């Protein structure tokens, strides 16, 4: 049974202290996280820096888009071979433009999918949360596999100066 608690802080410094405290108390990285209403410089809370594979998405999308566009521009022209403007049926320079657009489009769509996926969204059960986080409060959330360590975490949060601790 997993459970989690959320410590709320009004200032970033005590929240960062809490993160340090949790690390010292032997909590594994990845079992606790910080929630903020605005991005902070990376590593400001000593939080673990998430790894991601976002850059693979546009590449993957672009390859699909390019392949489709090659198919679309060449096959349709060959299927209905009408000469216009004295241009060859397979006019590479005209095809390039469509191919370019479709490649970019697929790249963008894949990136957006990538951003949502790598943000681990959509997440309709986001877990413990507090609406004051979007008002500038900082939340430190800890997830437990066994409940025996809840007290440890609470003491760390309290020591760092948590204004409130929520349980879920």
């Amino acid at each position, binding site marked *: 049974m997993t459970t989690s608690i959320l410590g709320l802080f009004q200032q*970033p410094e005590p929240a*960062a202290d809490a993160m*340090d405290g949790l690390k010292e108390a032997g909590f594994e*990285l*990845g079992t606790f996280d910080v929630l903020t209403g605005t991005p902070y410089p990376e*590593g400001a809370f000593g939080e673990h*820096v998430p790894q991601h594979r976002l850059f693979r998405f546009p590449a993957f999308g672009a390859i699909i888009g390019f392949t489709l566009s090659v198919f679309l521009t060449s096959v349709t022209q060959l299927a209905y071979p009408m000469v216009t403007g004295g241009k060859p049926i397979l006019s590479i320079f005209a095809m390039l433009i469509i191919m370019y657009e479709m490649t970019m489009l697929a790249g963008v769509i894949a990136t957006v999918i990538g951003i949502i996926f790598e943000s681990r969204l959509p997440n309709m059960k986001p877990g413990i949360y507090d609406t004051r986080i979007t008002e500038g409060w900082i939340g430190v959330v800890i997830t437990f596999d066994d409940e025996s360590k809840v007290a440890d975490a609470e003491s760390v949060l309290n020591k760092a100066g948590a204004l409130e601790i929520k349980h879920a």
Partner: protein
Amino acid sequence: MTNEAVAHESDHHAPPPNVAADVVARELVATTTGASGRFKAWTWILGILSVVGIAALIVKFIDQGDDSTKWGYVAAMVSFLLSVAGGAPMVAMAPVMAKANWVRPITRIASLFSFAGIATLIMLIPLVAILPPLVTEGARRRTIWYMAPDYSPHIWSTLGLVLLLLTGIMLFYSAALPDFASMRDHSTGWRQRLGKRLARGWVGTDVQWRTLRMRIGMFGTFYFLILVFVNFLISTDFGQSMVPGWRDAIFPMYHTVSGFQAGVAGVVIALYFSRKYMKLEKYIHLDAFWSLGRLLFALTLLWIYFFYSSFIVFWYGRSMNDIATLDLLIKGPMIYAFFAGMILLWFVPWWILIWNKVRRGTGAMVVGSFVILLGLLIDRIRTFVPAWSVPPENIHQKWLQEIPATVWPDVFDILIMAGGISLVAFTVMMMTRVIPVLSVWQVQEFNLLAKPIRYIKGHATLVAKPD
């Protein structure tokens, strides 16, 4: 999950601490003296090549001065040198425009290229003499000089180039005053005397700094405007207007943009060598390479954009002069040069510079820059050699009815090209003996404005943005 996190955490390291201002001054001034044996050998080689090149130019003028069709390579060289030597100082302009901090330490190296404009000017001299007049036998050829007096292109292009050279030197000098004062204070012998004379009593009062900033801004803006204008003149007068029916409105911009591309590539190369062989790792941060890499990448994409914008209009147009222009410049005598240029100016650099890892390093960046310069040289040959190979008697045709054959370089051309390129490198290298290759005061300013800080628990840099 946890392993990944731990592995990545160690990536977060503090930026190197700033170097004290007096150390900066002493160390950078010291770079002007004590050249290594390798440095001396290279300056000798380049110096000799430059002299041989200039001699070849003179001999060629005496030997082939009456046949304009043989001067394509020299014209390509003028355009190439204008691109590199003229484009590079633009990097020195960037802080004025964008207030970017990374560029401060490296503006000097960029503005040293201004002096290389002398090479462009030398190459231009015989070309001006050979450029056909506007009016022959009562008929006026198509140029941008509709009703202007005869010999307008000859006069204005030369004046433009001279003006560019002077403005470039003024831009350099106005930013170099405090460094000449550093030379005066920290150097010995002729360098100290030179510093004393050129520093013009610089002590760094508030008024002096204000005037300095104003001068840099002013000459920078002038330089930019003149550069664009000279690119416009040289590319039309010494390129486009040599071919009947070649009407390409974008060509001057294409020429300018690829000039910037080459300029940035030139700066990257100069930075790489000075960083490596003058041991300036402390001052030339990888951040500068990263930013230059992004700039170079953007310019590489602009090149293909400008090229394609022009090409597609000719390709669709299919009028007689559209077809003739494509035949002359792309499909015909220069087809291999065209493909080589395309690969070297766009495809290879694009593929190299697209990687963030590459832009954060130096090795692949310098390779990419060399590729770009080679590509640009080929691309300039691709446009200027066929333009000059059109016989002057055909210049009044409505469009080019007969596509000339490929013109290959002769011995003179090869010597001239080698000499021109050597002269640029030689000039820049010699200038590093006269003044520190990195601007002392701008390195100090860089350190003053950017400070490594602790941000809560993380590392960051705090960059001040004064007005």
